[in-house]
């Protein structure tokens, strides 16, 4: 109760000193989940090293990035959407669609740069369409993006029912080029792209008006409107951002797999959502960091890695762990936000 008493009075600077600052961060719905995720990641990595041979190598860590570069980009886009309190279910299908567009256009002989440009424009437009549906017609994001999900998946089959392999030299080189990081450790170009996307997203979310409006939307759309913020434009734009990110993610995915296939990335949108939530973004919007989402992806990747190191466990155990983790994080969010209220 001393809390409420303190909060009621304008606390003076002295009582707000360093002592409570730490507690404030730990109990804040803004920072706490991210810190928990970071702690979890470190704990998992340490325990993995204790349990398995050859686990503590830089390459194991780097492979988390290599294998999940596309998912990081996807989670970045998803973070924008979830921060506003929305959701984007279309992203998995959009990955498949953009990989298909890439494969098909490359097969037709279009140069790689053109292919990538077309793909990104197409997925952004798809995002724009969903955003407009949500804003103009007040359709629930869940429904609008569900429609987008079916649409994108269906379009994949229109392009081709069979898998199309990619032989384009640029794509192949993107897939095979490794950037050495000293010793035997190396990463792919996709990793650089993914990290670049994270950095840009971080900048946009924290140092642009658009980014702050994204947070504002998640806090309260009504308040945002009354404060004269460009609520409608922002709401549409986050879906464009998510569409663009799914497009980039799809391109990275096609670097990774060197093929386009209609049935790829089924359910990846749920991985992205899981990563964002585990990364500390509140599903109701308003709180969260894009860095947290990247961290969330790494946690998911680490679970997968550890299960493969375990050897005897079926890979489906990954899902079970992710499920359990999600539950824990959602409960954590509830507890933290309830304390505030």
């Amino acid at each position: 109760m001393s809390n409420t008493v303190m909060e009621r009075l304008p606390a003076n600077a002295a009582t707000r000193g360093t002592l409570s600052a730490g507690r404030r961060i730990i109990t804040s719905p803004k920072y706490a989940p991210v810190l928990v995720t970071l702690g979890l990641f470190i704990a998992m990595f340490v325990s993995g090293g204790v349990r398995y041979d050859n686990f503590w190598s830089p390459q194991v860590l780097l492979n988390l990035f290599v294998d999940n570069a596309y998912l990081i980009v996807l989670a970045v886009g998803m973070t924008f959407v979830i921060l506003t309190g929305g959701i984007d279910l279309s992203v998995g299908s959009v990955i498949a669609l953009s990989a298909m567009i890439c494969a098909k256009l490359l097969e037709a002989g279009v140069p790689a740069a053109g292919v990538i440009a077309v793909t990104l424009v197409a997925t952004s437009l798809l995002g724009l369409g969903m955003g407009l549906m949500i804003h103009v017609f007040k359709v629930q994001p869940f429904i609008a993006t569900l429609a987008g999900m079916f649409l994108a998946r269906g379009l994949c089959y229109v392009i081709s029912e069979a898998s199309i392999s990619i032989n384009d030299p640029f794509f192949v080189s993107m897939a095979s080029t490794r950037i050495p990081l000293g010793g035997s450790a190396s990463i792919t170009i996709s990793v650089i792209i993914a990290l670049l996307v994270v950095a840009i997203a971080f900048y946009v979310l924290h140092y642009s008006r658009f980014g702050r409006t994204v947070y504002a939307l998640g806090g309260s759309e009504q308040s945002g409107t009354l404060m004269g913020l460009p609520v409608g434009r922002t709401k549409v734009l986050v879906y464009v951002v998510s569409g663009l990110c799914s497009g980039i993610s799809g391109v990275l995915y096609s670097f990774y797999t060197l093929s386009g296939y209609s049935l790829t990335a089924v359910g990846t949108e749920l991985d992205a959502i899981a990563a964002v939530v585990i990364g500390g973004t509140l599903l109701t919007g308003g709180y969260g960091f894009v860095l947290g989402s990247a961290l969330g992806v790494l946690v998911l990747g680490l679970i997968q890695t550890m299960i493969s190191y375990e050897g005897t466990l079926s890979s489906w155990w990954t899902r079970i762990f992710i499920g359990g983790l999600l539950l824990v994080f959602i409960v954590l969010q509830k507890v933290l936000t309830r304390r505030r209220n």
Partner: protein
Amino acid sequence: MTQVLSPVDAVVDIVGVTMEFPGVMALDCVDFRMYPGEVHSLMGENGAGKSTLIKVLTGVYSATAGDMHLAGSKVSFSTPAQAQDAGISTVYQEVNLLPNLSVAENIMLGREPRRFGSLDWRAMRRRAAELLEGLNLDIDPGSLLGSHSIAIQQLVAIARAVDVNATVLILDEPTSSLDTDEVAELFRVIRTLKEQGCAILFVSHFLDQVYEIADRLTILRNGRLVGEYRTEEILKIDLVQKMIGKEMASFSELEQRHRESEEEIAGTGIPFLEAKGLGRRGAIRPVDFSIDEGEVVGLAGLLGSGRTEIARLLGGIDRADSGTSEVNGKAVKLTSPRKALSKRIAFASEDRRGEGIVGDLSVRDNIALALQIERGWYRPIAPKRVTELAQHYIDALNIRPADPHALVRNLSGGNQQKVLLARWLAVAPRLLILDEPTRGIDIGAKAEIQKLVFNLAENGMSVLYISAELEEVLRLSHRVGVMRDRHMVSMVENDSLSVEDLLALIAEGSEDEDEKDVVA
């Protein structure tokens, strides 16, 4: 400041503004003026047109007819943003800020300082700190807004409004959720702004506050202008008369009846509910509480003193974690509202919109709600019977509009409250818990609701009456429970108790700080 106030000096000059909604004349040729460096109060009952006028002023509505001049030049707003750009800022009753962002951002959002295209956080915090300092608010601009009390949040909203370089600041019911100290803080800020030449529109249901802060007031009734007065030149009683347009006999009549009834019955002496050591950790310290049949027990205390918490325990909303309760001498566990209802205890929440009415349902459906739930879904009430029921309460409680099919969301606050009361009366409770039933409603409806409470008690219903307005508590209650720091400090018989007595009881011994820590 000049004493001769002509339309030329006015910062806001509205002439003949008319606002017509389908079937309703919300504003009928109203004139309205505000001067710089003056606090102006807009008075009127709910439905008088206050909100409509504010919405015209802030660009939410475009007036059907009439002219608006701002600092001499003609303006017409079609969006709130236009009004804001023109220097009209509004702080609404509900704080419309973003709890998930920092105080600094809440103040600066939409016009953040930028450097090379990116937000300059340092400049933002500095500017916010300056503004907060200007209002004498000692809070960390970097802290999350949601971590502060509503009162502080409201002051942050004002800081934001001030930063827009507001020439006109509209405060719509800013004090309805503040306690006395917080109101004083707000008034200090208002006076500071006034000195800086800001024209402030202060809308409040609290007459005392209006008299304390307002220089001038405009009275509206039924969408029409009644008049504009200097506050010091109009007596409270005249003001009230002009607002409701009829003699305000009802209150004195009530008081008369209260005195008479006290001599006669003062409760029946048969206890209806008795609670021993009822408490809930972190909410309310264990209290002993009893209420007789036909007795009105008032709870008085400051905001957050535990008034509502007791009510929620008795209504089964929150579970008690200590103590026992008995209804008619039989032990009961009030673990859910449904349980409480089965013991004929009904609880009407203070949060009328959030926990009370269902805005998108009709008056009729809102009234029938609790009764239907009590009967269970498998025993529907015939539609005709429901309409009759609704009509009965509409007549009995004078609900306006007298249409059972009107959507409750379109009713004024006072009428919504009556609908809520009707809902609980329909289940024929033996104990009715009313938490702030008169908050934010007009004075006519207040009187009606109090009269109703009185009649109910006379007919044997027990009523637990909670209100921040001590006069109301004193007027109605046979006994008053005094709350302080989540603890019932005393239960006093209400014989010739005065507001001052009650205040003394509430304030008494508030220096024993260590007791507070025990609760924590």
